[in-house]
Every structure is written in structure tokens, then in C-alpha cells.
């Protein structure tokens, strides 16, 4: 029997894939698990909650009157307005009366996408038009509430661009990007390199010399962290020149957070790459570590949109710790004391994962 070459080539590739259980798991099982996990966590909820900061509440203005008349106050003093929509489902808008300082801080942290106030007797939205989430929320408020209540408090409101430093979308984005870059650089720059060197026998070749084994990893870590520092410094410089972003807080605190973040992610990179010499399996494990943080840690969009039960967990993910501390220093003017706890947690994560990683490390 003469066999078709293309068919044989296809079969051979399938057999190769099926006979590597790691590849199967990371290539097929992991994405399904991710979809299942995230689906359960975030689509099970039939309702969405959106937080809006209200300033000058109660001063007998139109917005205050509307909320007092139509909304329900919860135990935290927020005014809840629930709109059931056949398309958008159940939407709960939570209006939180705050003074302008706290409202601004909330916007900087991504808790609120926009603030609302009154000018004369008309309502005003304060938002950064570059922030897609804020624009979407404004649209929802205008259409859903306006149409439902046949009222122009929300639909006829003016929009004022939020241009206070630290409240713009770019202010939210840049510290997150620096944090994400540190994670990605460590995970791909270190984990991948280690796996490749193990695969090519290079690690084994190195350790059959009198070299100190920890120096092999320390060398890689130092080079990576130095590169991360240069990359972060250039990104900050660019953001300063092009977007007028300033470091409002302490430079010492920023360096401290940067170092702690690097400790955390180099440790995670070592444990991630401690066993496998198969690059496809390595690819899966690196994604397993990276992807949840990429999705959850609020790099591009605030994690406050996720269900409330998940927020404490999300806030303690290494990438969230790093991004949040960087945002608080760059946008809110935080100092060393304010980020000390997060710095310690990140360092601890780094030392523990590095120690465990080294213990289970396969050199060949």
C-alpha cells in the first residue's frame, strides 16, 4: 500500500503532540480551565455594579434631588439605583457622596471611572474621554437612567475633561504598564532562558565546573533586573516628556517598590522554570502564571469592576501589588511608609518562591 505523504506528515505531528502529555495539558486543558474558571467567576453574576463618585451632594442641587427621590441608600451611605434592562441586564449604579479630594483619589485608583457634580443647576460629568470605561459608563448613565426615568439629570449633563495629573487614563495606564513589563520581562526573559538552557545542556555544562550554582541564577537575575530598570526609567522619561506624567511621590519609595517587584517576579520566574526542559510545557506554565494576573490585576482597566468577593484576592496578586504601589507613588504622591506593607509582601513572595524554586531546581 502506498501511503499519502501529506497524510503521514499530519499523522506524525498529531502523534507527537498526543504523546507529550504536558503539551496536551497546557495547550488544550489549560485554556479550557481558564475559560471555565473565569466564566464561573465573572459571568455567573447576572448584575453589574458601577461606582460613581458624587461631590457636593446634598447641596440642594438637581443631582442630589434626583438621587434622594429615586435611589435607595445602602448601609455604607451610597445611593443605589437599579436598572433592569433587557439587553444590559441588571445594572446597579452606586453613587457615593464624597468630598472632592477623596473623589479624585478614588478616580486615581480606578475605583471610580468618573465623578459627578453640579454647576449651576445642571449636572456635570468629570471624566477623561481617553478612558473607554469612563465613556461607556457615562453613556450607560445617560441612556439607561435618562430613558427609564424620563429625566435629563444624566442625559442632559455637561462633560468636563478631567485633567488633574493622576486622574487621567494615561496616569492610570503608565504605572500599570511598567509593572506589567517587569512581570513579562522576568517571566519570559528569565523562565524561558532557563528552560532553553536546560534543554540545550548548557546548565548542565556549567555546573560540571567549580562554579557556584546560585551564581548562575544570580547572574541571570541581575542582568534581567538591570534591563528592567533601564526599561522602566525610559518609559517614565517618555511618559514625562510626552504625557506630562510626574512622579508625585517619593523617588526612594518608587525604587523600593521597583526592587521588591523585581524580587517577587524573579523568584516566581525561578520556580516557574525549575523543572521542565520542554519549551512547549514551559510556554504553558509561564502563561498559567502570567495570564490570570494580566486579566485580573487591573493593568488596562480597573479591577474594581470584578465581583467584590474577588477584590481582596486580586489585590494580593504580585502584579496588582506592584501596579497599585506604583500608581499610589506616581499619581497620589505616596511615600515609603504608604507602600511598606506591599513592598514587604512582594519581597516575601520573591524570597519564598526563589527558595522553593532553588530546592526543586533541575539543572539537567
Amino acid at each position, binding site marked *: 500500500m502506498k501511503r499519502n505523504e501529506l497524510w503521514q506528515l499530519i499523522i506524525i505531528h498529531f502523534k507527537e503532540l498526543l504523546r507529550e502529555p504536558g503539551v496536551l495539558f497546557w495547550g488544550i486543558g489549560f485554556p479550557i480551565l481558564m475559560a471555565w474558571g473565569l466564566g464561573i467567576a465573572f459571568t455567573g453574576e447576572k448584575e453589574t455594579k458601577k461606582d460613581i463618585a458624587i461631590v457636593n451632594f446634598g447641596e440642594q442641587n438637581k443631582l442630589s434631588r434626583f438621587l434622594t427621590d429615586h435611589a435607595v441608600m445602602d448601609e455604607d451611605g451610597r445611593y443605589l439605583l437599579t436598572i433592569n434592562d433587557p439587553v444590559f441586564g441588571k445594572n446597579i449604579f452606586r453613587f457615593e457622596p464624597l468630598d472632592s479630594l477623596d473623589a479624585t483619589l478614588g478616580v486615581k485608583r480606578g475605583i471610580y471611572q468618573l465623578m459627578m457634580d453640579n454647576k449651576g443647576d445642571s449636572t456635570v460629568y468629570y471624566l477623561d474621554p481617553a478612558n473607554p470605561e469612563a465613556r461607556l459608563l457615562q453613556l450607560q448613565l445617560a441612556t439607561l437612567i435618562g430613558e427609564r426615568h424620563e429625566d435629563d439629570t444624566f442625559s442632559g449633563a455637561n462633560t468636563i475633561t478631567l485633567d488633574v495629573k493622576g486622574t487621567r487614563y494615561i496616569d492610570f495606564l503608565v504605572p500599570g504598564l511598567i509593572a506589567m513589563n517587569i512581570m513579562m520581562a522576568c517571566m519570559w526573559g528569565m523562565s524561558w532562558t532557563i528552560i532553553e538552557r536546560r534543554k*540545550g545542556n548548557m546548565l548542565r555544562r556549567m555546573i560540571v*565546573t*567549580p562554579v557556584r550554582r546560585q551564581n548562575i541564577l544570580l547572574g541571570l537575575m541581575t542582568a534581567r533586573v538591570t534591563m528592567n530598570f533601564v526599561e522602566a526609567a525610559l518609559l517614565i522619561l517618555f511618559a514625562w516628556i510626552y504625557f506630562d506624567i510626574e512622579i508625585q511621590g517619593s523617588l526612594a519609595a518608587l525604587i523600593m517598590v521597583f526592587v521588591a517587584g523585581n524580587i517577587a517576579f524573579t523568584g516566581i520566574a525561578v520556580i516557574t522554570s525549575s523543572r521542565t526542559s520542554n519549551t512547549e510545557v514551559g510556554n504553558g506554565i509561564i502563561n498559567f502564571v502570567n495570564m490570570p494576573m494580566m486579566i485580573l490585576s487591573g493593568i488596562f482597566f480597573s479591577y474594581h469592576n470584578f465581583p467584590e468577593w474577588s477584590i481582596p484576592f486580586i489585590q494580593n496578586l504580585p502584579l496588582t501589588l506592584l501596579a497599585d504601589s506604583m500608581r499610589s507613588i506616581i499619581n497620589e504622591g505616596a511615600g515609603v511608609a504608604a507602600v511598606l506593607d506591599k513592598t514587604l509582601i512582594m519581597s516575601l513572595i520573591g524570597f519564598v518562591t526563589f527558595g522553593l524554586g532553588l530546592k526543586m531546581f533541575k539543572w539537567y
Partner: protein
Amino acid sequence: MVTEYLIDAKGLHKHFKKVKAVDGVDFALEKGEYVALLGPNGAGKTTLVEMIEGIRTPDQGQILVRGRSLNEDKSALYGLLGISFQETRFLEKITVLETVRLFASFYKQPDEKIGKVIHLVGLEDKKDAYTKNLSGGQRQRLALGISLLNDPEILILDEPTTGLDPSARREIWDILLKLKKNMGTSLILTTHYMEEATHLCDRIIIMDKGRFLAEGSLSSLISRMNIPDVALFTVEGTIPDDLVLKQDGPDIQWDRAKGKGRCEMKNVASDMPLLFTFLENHNLRLVDFEHTKPTLDDVFLSMTGRRLSEETE
């Protein structure tokens, strides 16, 4: 006088699942000795050297290097050893010079040593080339150079010339012979090339299925197995069967189909003249004559019933 061995390994066993990779082996290496571990793929050569290198732990048995256990001080052990694996993928965009410099730092060697090693392995022209741009032979010479950085007393090379063309192989042999002559280095070499073992080594250990089948110099192995030399010849015309059967002395066979004769000679000095006398007495004029000595392949064949060359192709 008790010989002090550089390496003294006794009762080594190593199993992988159900496979006995090394099955009760004793091994010793003397100073200045070149030893070849010869055997087909899967014979256990690499596992044995990896145990000696301290990369694998034996299930049973002990290994002493210069009288000290491998576990005592690995760093000191690696100061004595020069190791080259079957294949190492060096960092691709790092040059030969940079690679040697990196490894020299592991051995605390001065910069002069780097140049010497690059010269010794003949890579001066390639010292600024990225390792990914080296040929297979050049890459093996780089690996060999790195293993020589510490002037090792013991060199352990795992199939250093596998996959290389004959001239690249010969270049590596020349370097190794120079080392033996000039430095008094000892060598453990795993190979499945018979000519490599014969050309380089004082002692050849034939390994199969995790065991040592025989060891000694090529000549002692051959004489121990009593393998005859062979003379192949052609004559004008043919030799009748009855003539061949009648003759006394060495065993002469005539292949009528191929028109070729074959004579096995257990003692060349006495059997060769008898062959010529036989041909002369029967007026058989020689057209072609070839004398072949037994090879390691013949030794392996007589021990296992299999040809080494068949196993490794």
C-alpha cells in the same frame, strides 16, 4: 606495589525503570592512561560516565576520584575533571572568545589561558564568531577547549566526534594525542567508532547491555578471542574444490561465484608462507592479495554474535 588509581569505581549499578543501564561494573583509571568505552547505542557508556562525573548517583557501588568520594567536595572534583558532553548548545549569540572567557572565570583561570586554549583547539580564526555560526566540528572543538581550561588531570569525553566528518574527527584526535604526549592527561572516552578507540586509547573496554564484555589493548583483545588474520586473494583461473579440501595447513576457502579466495591465519608468520607455497605448488598465479588484521568489530562479533557497526549505523 599498590597502584593508585585516579578513578576507582566498584560495583556500579544504575537502573532506569526496568532497564539495567549499568549492571555491576568495576572501573579504574590510571594516571596518563587513555581508556575507551566502546559499545553500541544504549550499552550504558553515557550512564557510566555520568556517574563518574557526579551527574547521576549510582543505585549501588562507590566511586573514588583521587581516593575521595564524589560527594565530599564536588567543586574540588570539577577542578580535576575536564568534561565534554555528547552535545551542548552554547549561547547562540555569544562568540567563541566570550564563551571560553565565561568558562575560564568558573575555573579562575587568567586571560592568557583563554588564548592558549583557543589556539590549542585551532579556533583562532573563529574566535569572534557567534557559536551558532560554528560547524559541528568547530563546536565540538570549542566544547573540548572548554574542558581543557583547567588543565584537567582527567578528561571525560562523551562521543566527542559523533556526527563529524573524517577530517574534523582527525583534528580532534590530533589534539587529544598532543595532550597525552605533552600534559600526561588521562582520558575516558566513550565512542562507537572502533578506529577512534584503536587510534587513541591504550585500553579498550567493550560494553554491551550495561556490562563490560572485555577489556585490554586491541592486540590483547584479539589474541584473547583467538581471532585469525584474513588474507583475501584472486588468482588467474580458479581453484578446484578438491584441491582446497586436500591441502594441509591454514584454512583456505574458494568462493566460486565471486572468484575470490579467503585464508584465515591464526599464526601469520607460519600460515602466510604455507598459503604462498600452496599457490606456487599448484601453479596458481596471484592477481590480487589483501591481508586484513582483526578489528574491534570482529571482537564484538565473536562476543555477542552481532556486529558493532550494524548496531551503531
